[in-house]
């Protein structure tokens, strides 16, 4: 009798975070079981940090069945890079880093231009090269469906052709918890274990699991350019500061960590994870809307980049 009550109690207290976590671990283990040469794309951002945390739960005491791979734009926040290197060392997992700067040289590509010379688009070349170099057949990423309208359409196992391209009109059906990762040589599958998590879920999970993050996620004082549409862009060696620019010193934090030249900071008073959760519950602007310059270019910017091989 006791046992039944226990069981009901356990089921009642089952949080939705347990459900999301279980789904993500299940997906990670499917990758390990189905592919010969998977990789986990690690950016040093909160989503990929959560992926690593989930991988620990999925595979320890064993080693990860995949290396961590970072496509380094060269436009990084130092804190994210330090975090990345420490993490790999601390976990004793393999880290592969490939540099967009090298790709630009080797392929004679045009580097990002203009005031905010983003290498966000150029990343795709380096990514496709590293996939080819190591013959990765699966790349795990931390993209979430709530981030963007094209992402909201993507499968958890998303098949890419030899050119890394996504064909949104020909996606495989994805039924129940059954993931079909079969691809031909040269093709690969992008796998998104936290597809069903929202930004708030990620923070609630970080809180629950006490996950350490790079300091730029928390408020700090920073010199920024206040752009015409009200975004706060970090001043740094890559950004051209002109006389007409309004340069301000503000208390800010980052909601996403990407290419430093196209990721905006948000004003914030959040010193702790709890503060961030509170702030997000009241936020009126979406994650990408607040922080990304690149998605404002056109209505289908993300869809187009994905079709071209981007995450």
């Amino acid at each position, binding site marked *: 009798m006791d046992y039944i009550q226990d069981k009901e109690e356990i089921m009642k207290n089952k949080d939705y975070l347990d459900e999301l976590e279980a789904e993500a671990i299940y997906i990670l283990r499917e990758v390990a079981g189905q592919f010969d040469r998977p990789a986990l794309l690690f950016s040093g951002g909160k989503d990929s940090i959560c992926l690593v945390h989930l991988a620990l739960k999925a595979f320890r005491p064993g080693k990860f069945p995949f290396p961590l791979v970072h496509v380094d734009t060269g436009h990084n926040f130092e804190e994210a890079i330090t975090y990345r290197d420490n993490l790999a060392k601390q976990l004793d997992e393999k880290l592969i880093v490939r540099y967009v700067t090298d790709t630009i040289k080797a392929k004679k590509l045009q580097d990002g231009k203009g005031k905010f010379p983003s290498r966000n688009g150029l990343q795709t070349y380096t990514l496709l090269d590293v996939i080819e170099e190591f013959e990765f057949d699966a790349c795990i990423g931390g993209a979430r469906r709530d981030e963007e309208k094209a992402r909201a359409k993507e499968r958890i196992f998303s098949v890419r052709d030899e050119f890394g391209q996504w064909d*949104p009109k020909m996606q495989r059906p994805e039924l129940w918890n*059954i993931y079909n990762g*079969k691809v031909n040589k040269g093709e690969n599958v992008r796998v998104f274990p936290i597809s069903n998590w929202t930004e708030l879920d990620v923070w609630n999970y970080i809180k629950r699991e006490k996950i350490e993050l790079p300091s730029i996620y928390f408020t700090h004082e920073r010199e920024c350019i206040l752009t015409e549409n009200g975004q706060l862009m970090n001043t740094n060696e890559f950004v051209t500061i002109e006389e007409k620019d309004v340069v301000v010193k503000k208390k800010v934090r980052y909601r996403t960590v990407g290419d430093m030249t196209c990721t905006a900071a948000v004003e914030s008073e959040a010193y702790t994870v709890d503060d961030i959760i509170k702030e997000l519950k009241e936020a009126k602007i979406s994650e990408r*809307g607040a922080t990304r310059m690149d998605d404002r270019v056109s209505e289908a910017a993300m869809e187009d980049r994905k079709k071209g091989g981007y995450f």
Partner: protein
Amino acid sequence: MDLLRFFTAGNVDDGKSTLIGRLLYDSNSISTDIIETLTRQSKTTGTNTEIDLALLTDGLRAEREQGITIDVAYKYFSTDKRKFIIADTPGHIQYTRNMFTGASNANLAIILVDARNGITDQTKRHSIISAILGMPHVLVCINKMDLVDYSEEKYKQIESDYLTFAKQLNLKDISFIPASALAGDNVVTKSDKMSWYKGKPLLEFLETIEIVEAKQTDVSRFQVQYVIRPQTDDLHDYRGFAGRVVSGSYQKGQKVTVLPSGIETTIDKIEVNQQEVELAETNTPVVLHLKDDVDISRGNSIVPTEHLPKTEKEVTATICWMDNAAYIPGQKILLQQNSFRTKAVVKEVISKIDIHSFTQLESDGAMKLNDICKVLIKTAEPISFDSYADNRNSGSFILINENTNNTIAAGTID
């Protein structure tokens, strides 16, 4: 807080995407920058309305251009009462496989009906698919009430037509709401134009319905996804079977059988995140250790010895054919049931479901896109299974074309 996963279905243009857009908009779940974008887009691509709410989920360029949904979009929102994962699926028959995709993980179906047109073939097809999937709750939303003068009579007629049709389907819990997704009647707030309707508006309905999980027997099921073998000096003999407790629970010391080999052994240790536990409940990711050193690989089942699933080389199942290319008799295929994969062949197409009458038609042996058929499948390796009615996990599978690698059918075992 609990989680409700639901999806929208119904004929093309019945207002599924608009309804989801309205639900999110009126519940203040859309960020201001997204609303700005939608307003801008509505001027160029959308309908004449100020803001075309369908554009919120129709996230692909082709969808916006054509004003239809092509593939399922997932949306997330929560209220004080509950967290929701929404799958907005396409109504067009050509994209039935995408509708199936959105429906397969849900616990509740919202089937929309255009109040002017009443029940259509797609209403029936999607209801049949919901029935095949064992959907615990079905909500029929009779939409576009604004176009029929909010007529109670119209509503009643459609309600009774639907119930007549649904009688054969064995759908469990059916409810009805009259609404206008466009005008916002009975979506988040109760409409003052339909005082004859005494029920709840949609949001309140979704917040308060008692969720019945898609039926999971308490019989314990577990499949090995991956074998953890660190092979380090200190963990030299460590050999753990990683997977998820699919249903029921597992206990230390429990007598278990490994399938398909049939070898009996005992659970020596259960680990959750490297912590040893006595008991692991449904849905927990675990690592199992067994007393005896048996040969086990990915896709094998570890099940309680006193409650074995069937283990056979033949299954009878209902499948929905999803490939553009029709089935070729004798075609070699792969069958995948969670982490278990085997070569297989459809030995016989037994019958085909007629979606108008929901009767089993005699089969001519052919199967083409969107056909729902009862088939006999022969597998190369024995498969351990339960009937889908008993267990959604061990009773479902997909078929894969060995050549194109495409997922070509979804199946539920009889």
